[in-house]
């Protein structure tokens, strides 16, 4: 049977099946059969065009025709397999015999198309441009959830892939051309890209180049969808950074296994990158500790003036995270007392005015003041946005902002701990990013570094307080004598006979020998 005869047979079978589907009100099947009939008609037209140009056609034209024939053949195969799988899953066997017959005929047709123009060699760029219209695919999906971006200008191909992938629990995004595909990829949340090569405008090669040139996207796995099974096209894509390729028409098993393989490799690579990022972050933290935090701790420990020490602790902490403002509280008699206030925008730096201190130490709210919570719980309290939903009372800050026309967003309260007790609290307001000076929350890394700094600051503070106490104690020179004990000790001596005699003798001696 010739390709034309096979195509006609398939068209008849599709019409018969569609009539049966309409009779039994199988609407979704009817919709898919319309798409299959469209592909079959396109195939018939291409075959007719082929017979007209059979004689005198050059190799390039024949290659292009063969490429174009593969697209509708692939779509027919894909729909057959997809529908069979769906009905098998649903346990609906009514349509399976007819779909199997159609599938067999399409498979036979594919062999005929593959035989056509065998040995014609690789397609040229012009051939690819000529056939930049429609593509085909078909297959299935793997286990874990992932979001796959399908970039293909052929709606039927996108639909087929979308349905196949969703059957395996994938999330699917579609893009009808290269430009939209790139836009969607740049939005993020994409785990893998299925990319058609031949598309109008920005083709698959162009999209691939753009992806690989983007620092954020170059690690994204890209599987090329190609009806061009020639070696140089595949080689070019792999060299440009594609992870794999799947030739059209798709073998669903191969497509699924390649997607799975790519996703597993991506997972492993993501883990590797995450670990690498962690290692880099840890190294950065260790370097900062070694080269920045520890020298500051040493410098702080040498500061003898307590007011200067408090000011410097706050200043250094602010410098580390670029905080616009901050406060330092000390635990005095079991209560927090504000000792230092630094607000860059207002030029405030030092011991705060009593009224300001009182307003910032408004600890009577229904929810806990972050500084109080940090001291009591001995943990860092990190509030990314005080105007968002927070479990802490920040009315003192919003009131301060309103009074001075400021806008505080992020707050970090760090306890200054020493031997299991809180000496005070270091509070920082409005972190700024180092690279662009933009306001941001306090990052995990900066909290970690600041915790190390606060430990060294606590040690310096503790030493300073001890020294200050000692100095005061020394200046006071407290002499304590136990009067009762002294009386007992004195009487133990004075009550002895020896002492009594000695006292008498001493009196006599002092009176002189004459007496």
């Amino acid at each position, binding site marked *: 049977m010739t390709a034309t005869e096979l195509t006609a047979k398939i068209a008849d079978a599709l019409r018969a099946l569609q009539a049966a589907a309409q009779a039994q009100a199988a609407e979704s099947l009817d919709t898919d059969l319309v798409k299959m009939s469209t592909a079959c008609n396109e195939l018939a037209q291409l075959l007719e065009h082929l017979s007209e140009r059979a004689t005198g056609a050059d190799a390039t034209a024949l290659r292009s025709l063969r490429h174009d024939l593969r697209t509708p053949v692939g779509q027919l195969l894909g729909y057959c397999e997809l529908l069979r799988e769906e009905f098998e899953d649903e346990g609906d066997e009514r349509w399976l015999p007819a779909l199997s017959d159609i599938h067999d005929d399409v498979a036979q047709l594919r062999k005929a198309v593959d035989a056509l123009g065998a040995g014609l060699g690789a397609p040229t760029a012009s051939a690819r441009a000529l056939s930049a219209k429609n593509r085909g695919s078909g297959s299935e999906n793997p286990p874990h959830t992932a979001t796959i971006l399908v970039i293909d200008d052929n709606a039927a191909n996108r639909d087929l892939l979308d349905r196949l992938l969703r059957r395996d629990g994938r999330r699917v995004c579609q893009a009808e051309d290269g430009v939209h595909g790139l836009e969607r990829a740049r939005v993020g949340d994409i785990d893998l890209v299925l990319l058609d090569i031949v598309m109008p405008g920005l083709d698959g090669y162009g999209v691939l180049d753009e992806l690989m040139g983007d620092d954020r996207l170059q690690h994204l796995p890209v599987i090329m969808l190609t009806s061009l099974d020639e070696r140089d096209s595949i080689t070019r894509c792999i060299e440009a950074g594609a992870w794999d390729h799947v030739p059209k028409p798709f073998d669903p098993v191969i497509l699924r296994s390649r997607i799975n393989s790519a996703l597993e490799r991506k997972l492993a690579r993501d883990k590797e990158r995450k670990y690498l990022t962690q290692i880099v972050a840890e190294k950065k933290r260790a370097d900062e500790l070694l080269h920045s935090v520890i020298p500051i701790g040493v410098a702080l420990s040498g500061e003898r003036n307590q007011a200067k020490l408090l000011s410097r602790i706050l200043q250094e902490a602010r410098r580390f995270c670029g905080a616009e403002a901050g406060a330092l509280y000390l635990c005095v008699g079991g209560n927090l007392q504000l000792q230092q206030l630094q607000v860059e925008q207002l030029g405030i730096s030092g011991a705060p005015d009593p009224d300001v201190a009182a307003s910032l130490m408004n600890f009577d709210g229904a929810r806990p003041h972050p500084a109080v919570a940090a001291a009591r719980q001995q943990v860092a309290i990190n509030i990314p946005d005080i105007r968002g939903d927070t479990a802490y009372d920040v009315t003192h800050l919003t009131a301060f902002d309103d009074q001075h026309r400021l806008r505080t967003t992020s707050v970090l309260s760090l306890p200054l701990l020493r031997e299991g007790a809180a000496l005070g609290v270091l509070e920082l307001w409005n972190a700024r990013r180092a690279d662009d000076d933009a306001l941001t929350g306090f990052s995990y890394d900066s909290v970690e570094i600041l915790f190390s700094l606060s430990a060294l600051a606590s040690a310096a503070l503790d030493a300073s307080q001890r020294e200050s106490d000692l100095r005061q104690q020394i200046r006071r*020179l407290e002499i304590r*004598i136990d009067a009762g004990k002294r009386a007992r000790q*004195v009487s133990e*001596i004075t009550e002895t006979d020896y002492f009594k005699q*000695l006292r008498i003798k001493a009196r006599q001696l002092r009176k002189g020998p004459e007496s």
Partner: protein
Amino acid sequence: MTEIISIHSFRGGTGKSNTTANLAAFMATLGKRVGVMDTDIQSPGIHVLFNLDPSEIQYSLNDYLWERCAISQAAYDVTHRLGPRVAGKVFLIPSSLQTGEITRILRDGYDVSILNDGINALTRELQLDYLLIDTHPGLNEETLLSIALSQTLLIILRPDHQDYQGTGVTVEIARSLEVPRLLLVVNKTPPQFDPQEVERTVRETYDCEVAAVIPHSDDLMMLASAGVFSMRQPHHPLSAMYRALGHRVLGTESPPE
């Protein structure tokens, strides 16, 4: 009439011997005849400050107490060891440095009345203006005797909690023995202290005159008892303090330094 001055402390290590030696040297520079008796029989040491070599000691206080010699035989003129311009005299009556002698005194004791007789004889024979008695720390029989015989008692203490209670007991005992003049000397005072504050606190605590607040001195430590400090370093501020203490003890006017 010889004035007997005992230099005492409740605990050891207060700088008693150093104070005694510096006072004796000061008095000698004023032309006084001074005797220095080391009654710290258990741990003698003042001879080192006067550079008296043990081999030079034929008789000691121990020999006198055991009636092996007269007290004057146990007195050594150490004036020339203080320096060239000393108008007076300093006689040192050392305790024995021989461990056997020390053990014997500790084991068998001695009749403290002999010590009293010896003191009387010594002041008479050597025609002393002053007899300084460097006592053993604490309160035992010979210490009590020294205190009882004294016209002036100098109690040395450090600004240290270990010294406060015992000093209080010593002051009360001295009062009970009716010592005519009681003076406190705060020695080895750390530089962080305010001397006036120390003087006031000690005076009010013990209700007793404070003759001097002498700071801790690394220079004195460096000398390591190899001489009398105020004679070795007469221009040192500490030497001026010893001289001021001497004037206070003698009740004389202290010239401006």
